[in-house]
């Protein structure tokens, strides 16, 4: 903000040394553009290396078989990890989506008060929360209570992680629905909850799906909370009271093994994971966000 005194000063300043000011401007523009390049290089390098090292490992067997003995000639595959990640995504969505959508409806339709503001605030705080703490929490609540590591504990942790994202995007997309559409519903004598379900949710559909898909992309890459909850395993799903495997967890374990075959498999698993995550993100962007002119309302975040 510029005061009148400052303005006079600026005027005096701007009349002089135009040449050097233009040079400063050019230099800064160059530096700033350099920053953008600097940020793009790692992304390019990551994508390149993941594809270069991961692609040779990919095969039908790699995607479907269980892992073989550590360091042996038959390294097996990552079948259980893929199964585990898909199951975790499905089961977490079963808990996270309904609660998140309902919470978002509350914030948008009934939340214009102090209570709503409090929830909105803590929702945003939870969205940026260290997920390892949520993993510890799920360990204490589910694993210690039940007495075994299981996919249930992992589901609980991941549903907490996806919840704030869905709540936020649901609220944002419901708020975009014009008041006139609501009023049209009320004018027909329709009850409020029917208006919300039949009119608002269908108008805000694309925003809702965007939020859900982004949150799935996020939890798909989560590793830290899984260490304490599903533990990791080399077998396919055998029951809700048994440890499970998941892609990010498998990548971590493989990266710690001192065998070249394990490292190669780690890259292969990373390729599968990054394909899932990026497909969801790019798909969302392509299908839904473009229509509304940029998706700044929905921030993409990665699993920790």
């Amino acid at each position: 903000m510029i005061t009148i005194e400052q303005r006079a000063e600026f005027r005096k300043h701007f009349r002089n040394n135009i040449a050097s000011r233009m040079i400063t401007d050019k230099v800064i523009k160059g530096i700033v553009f350099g920053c953008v390049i600097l940020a793009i290089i790692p992304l390019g390098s990551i994508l390149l290396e993941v594809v270069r090292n991961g692609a040779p490992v990919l095969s039908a067997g790699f995607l479907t078989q269980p892992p073989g003995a550590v360091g042996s000639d038959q390294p097996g595959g990552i079948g259980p990890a893929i199964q585990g990640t898909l199951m975790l995504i499905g089961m977490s969505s079963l808990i996270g989506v309904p609660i998140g959508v309902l919470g978002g409806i509350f914030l948008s339709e009934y939340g214009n008060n102090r209570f709503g503001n409090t929830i909105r605030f803590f929702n945003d705080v939870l969205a940026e929360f260290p997920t390892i703490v949520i993993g510890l929490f799920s360990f204490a609540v589910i694993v210690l209570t039940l007495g075994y590591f299981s996919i249930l504990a992992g589901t609980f942790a991941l549903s907490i992680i996806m919840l704030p994202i869905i709540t936020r995007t649901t609220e944002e997309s419901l708020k975009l629905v014009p008041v006139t559409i609501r009023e049209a519903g009320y004018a027909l004598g329709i009850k409020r909850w029917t208006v919300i379900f039949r009119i608002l949710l269908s108008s805000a559909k694309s925003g809702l799906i965007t939020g859900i898909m982004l949150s799935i992309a996020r939890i798909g890459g989560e590793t830290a909370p899984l260490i304490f909850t599903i533990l990791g395993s080399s077998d396919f799903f055998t029951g809700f009271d048994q440890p499970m495997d998941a892609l990010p967890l498998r990548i971590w374990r493989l990266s710690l093994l001192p065998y070249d075959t394990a490292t190669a498999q780690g890259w292969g698993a990373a390729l599968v994971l990054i394909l899932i995550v990026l497909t969801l993100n790019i798909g969302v962007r392509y299908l839904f966000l473009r229509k509304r002119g940029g998706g700044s309302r929905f921030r993409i975040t990665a699993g920790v």
Partner: protein
Amino acid sequence: METVKLKGGSPLFDKIFKIAAAVAATYILAIIALIVFQLVSGSYQIWAQEGISFLTGSDWNAVEGSESYGAAPYIAGTFVTAGLAMLIGVPISIGIAMFLAELAPKFLRSILSFIIELLAAVPSVIYGLWGMFVFRDYLRDWIEVPLNNALGNNVFLFSGTPFGLDIFTASVVLAIMVIPTIASISREIMIAVPNSQREAAYMLGATKWEVFKMAVIPYSKSGLIGASILGLGRAVGETMAVTMLIGNATGPQAFPTSLFGPSQTMSSIIANEFPEASQGSLHMAALIGVGLILFAVAICINMVAQLLVSRVLKTHQGAVLA
């Protein structure tokens, strides 16, 4: 006479629905409260045994009989890596945000913002894998070894034997990971600066950079600080990439002394040692205690950041419309 049946049943459903929605929203508050409760009760044992020396001590001995735990090195390690990541990441992020909000032509703007956001979508464990097998070698050969050769004997920061799995590598990868968060929020905040501010500066004959310096920065300062703190929150809680890259020292050796030495953060010690801790042991209580400290740090950082960012985006969006 024809009767018109109003859709939606009795007003009772309205009430029930509202209550259900309120319960769903309250679930978030309940979860946060439960997290606090569980972390406190799970780590009670260690606070009873070690007291304040859990925060200040540096021993980490899990051998039964001579158990002793101190989290100071990991607290220090967390702040050093996160701080270094901020030193590297914040200027670059603000530069990116400036380019995207002020300089870039329209067609580049959306493509570049998307690419930056994709950087945020890459899972942490893949950053770790990339850092471990690709980036570490470049960093060691091109930056760490030359710096160590030139300054290693005189400046303690650059002493030690660069191996690549150390504080420096972890911090640089952390910086890469927080850049998209800080850059995209900063960009939103800069876009929210009313054009009248810029026009006033242009009218005085300012160049683009001068407009940015005297009209955009002062107006968006608190929001930019908020965005950076939000990035700090991410860096503090980041687990997998750091665990894979920091070298995982324990005990007094974990104190960060040289940039090229191994260390440990709060989240990485939990991830590393948890599989070895038996349930109900003091070791487990110590790890949950570290989790409690991490929780306290992260919630403070996040609350400050949310207050700063939301206030700026709210009031300034109003100003843009007006």
